[in-house]
C-alpha cells in the first residue's frame, strides 16, 4: 500500500474526441483535433483536486492516430507536464496502445527526446520513445518488481549505484519516487487494483 494519495484519473480519449468535437468519429487526426483533445485533457486535470495525479490516457477507442495528433496529444501533453511551471504534478500512462498508435507515438516521442509508459491491450506495460539502453533496462527491472526500496537501489546495478539512474527515470516522469519512503515505484504499481 502507498502511504500517500496519488489520484488516478482515467481519460478516455475516444470519448473526449467525440465530446469536444461534437462528432461521432474516433479518428485522432488533424492538428486542431489534437490541440482540442490536449486542452480538454489539461482542463480535466486542472479541475481535479490533489497535488499528485496519475493520469491514464485511454486510447482504446481511437481507431486512427496521425502524426499531427500524436504530437499534440502525446508529445506536447508530456512536455507541458515536464516543464518547471507545470500546472500540476502529473504522471501519465497511455492505455490501450496498439500498433496503430505506437508507430506515430514513437515518432513524435523520439523527435522530442521523450519517452512514455504504455499499457498494451494485453495489460503489459511498455516503455516507448527515446530511452537509453540503461534507462530501458532499469525501467524493465522496476516494472517487473513494481517497486524498489532505496537500499535495494544502491546495489541493483552491477556497475554501481542505480539510484542516480532511477532518479533520471523519475525526473522524466517514467517512474515515481515515494516522498515518504524514498522507494521507487513503477507507474503500473500506482495504478494498483484501481486500474
Amino acid at each position, binding site marked *: 500500500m502507498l502511504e500517500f494519495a496519488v489520484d488516478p484519473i482515467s481519460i478516455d480519449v475516444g470519448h473526449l474526441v467525440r465530446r469536444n468535437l461534437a462528432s461521432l468519429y474516433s479518428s485522432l487526426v*488533424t492538428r486542431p483535433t489534437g490541440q482540442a483533445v490536449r486542452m480538454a485533457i489539461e482542463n480535466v486535470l486542472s479541475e481535479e483536486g490533489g497535488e499528485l495525479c496519475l493520469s491514464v490516457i485511454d486510447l482504446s477507442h481511437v*481507431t*486512427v492516430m*496521425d502524426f*499531427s495528433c500524436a*504530437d499534440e496529444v502525446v508529445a506536447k501533453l508530456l512536455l507541458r507536464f515536464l516543464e518547471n511551471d507545470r500546472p500540476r504534478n502529473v504522471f501519465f500512462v497511455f492505455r490501450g496502445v496498439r500498433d*496503430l498508435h505506437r508507430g506515430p507515438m514513437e*515518432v513524435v516521442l523520439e523527435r522530442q527526446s521523450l519517452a512514455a509508459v504504455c499499457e498494451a491491450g494485453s495489460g503489459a506495460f511498455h516503455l516507448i520513445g527515446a530511452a537509453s539502453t540503461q534507462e530501458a533496462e532499469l525501467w524493465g527491472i522496476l516494472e517487473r518488481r513494481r517497486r524498489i526500496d532505496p537500499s535495494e537501489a544502491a546495489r541493483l546495478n552491477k556497475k554501481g549505484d542505480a539510484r542516480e539512474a532511477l532518479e533520471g527515470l523519475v525526473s522524466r516522469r517514467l517512474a515515481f519516487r515515494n516522498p515518504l519512503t524514498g522507494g521507487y515505484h513503477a507507474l503500473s504499481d500506482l495504478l494498483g487494483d484501481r486500474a
Partner: protein
Amino acid sequence: MQIIPVPGTLDASAVDHLIRELAKNPEEKVLFDARHLRWVDPGGIIGLLAVGTVTRDRQGTPPRLQLMDGADVTTYLARMRFFEAAEAVFDLDIRHPRRSWSSSDVLLEITSISTNSDVHAVVDRVQQQAGAILSKTLSYPASAVVQFSVILSEVCQNVIEHAEAPGWVAAQSYMWTKRLGRQVLILHVADVGKGFRGSLADTHAGRFGDRWGDATALEAAFIHGLTRFPDSGRGQGIQQIRKQVRRWEGGISIRSGTARISDVPKWDDTLPMEDNLPYFPGAQIHIVLPARIPGDA
C-alpha cells in the same frame, strides 16, 4: 479563343502539357477540348480542375470544357464526382451524366478539402472502403488501412496548413499492365495556393540566398522536413509519409511552382528532381502504391 487539346491519356505528368499550353496566351479565353480524352486518373482529373481553377481566377470567367457525351470516360468522371466539382470551375457544355454507384475500384471520389472537418470526413470514408482495395487488390496487410488513413490525413492537412486555398483529393486503383504489370493505387492531392516556396519563404528564404526557389523549397520540406512553424513537432508528416510509401515500394512526388521532387522506386525512371517546369501555383502531391507480389516480405 485559345483551344487547348486535352491529351487522350491524362495523368499527373500529362497535366504539364495543359499548364504549358495555358502559359502561351494567359489572357486569352480558353476552351479545353477533352473530346479525345480516353483515360484519366486522379492526378489527371484533379489536374484538370486545378488548371481550370487557375484559368478562371486569372480571367474572371470560367473556361469552357468540352467532353465527349456518352463516352466511357465521361461516365467514369461522373462516377468520380468530377462534375460536382467542375460546375464551379468550368463552363461545361455537357449534361450531367448519371453517376454509377457501383465503383469497387474507386477508393475516394474527388473531394474538396478546405477545413479540418473535410479531412475527418475523408479519413472516415476511406476507413470504410479501403480495406477491400488494400487487402484484396493490393495484397497489403490489414493494418495498411490505418497507415493509409494516416497518409491521407497528413497530405490533406498539407493543403489546409500551407496552401491557404482549397484543394482536392482522390484515390483510385488501376491495373498498370504495361508499366508495371501490377495493380496500383493512385492517391492525388492538389491545391492552387501558396506552394512550398510561398509557405516557407518568410522563415527560410534568407538562409538560402540566391539559391532560394521552388526546387530548394521542395528540398527543404521533402528532404529536411522544414516547415514555416518554429514548433519542433512540426514537419514530420511528409517524412513519415515518405517512409511508409518506401516500405510499400511506392513512389511519391510533389510538384510545386516550377519544380517536382520525387522519391523514385526501383520500378520507375522518373528524375528525383525536375526544375524549370512551366509554373503552376500551389502544390500537387502524387502517390503511387503498387500491389505486393506474393512472396514479398
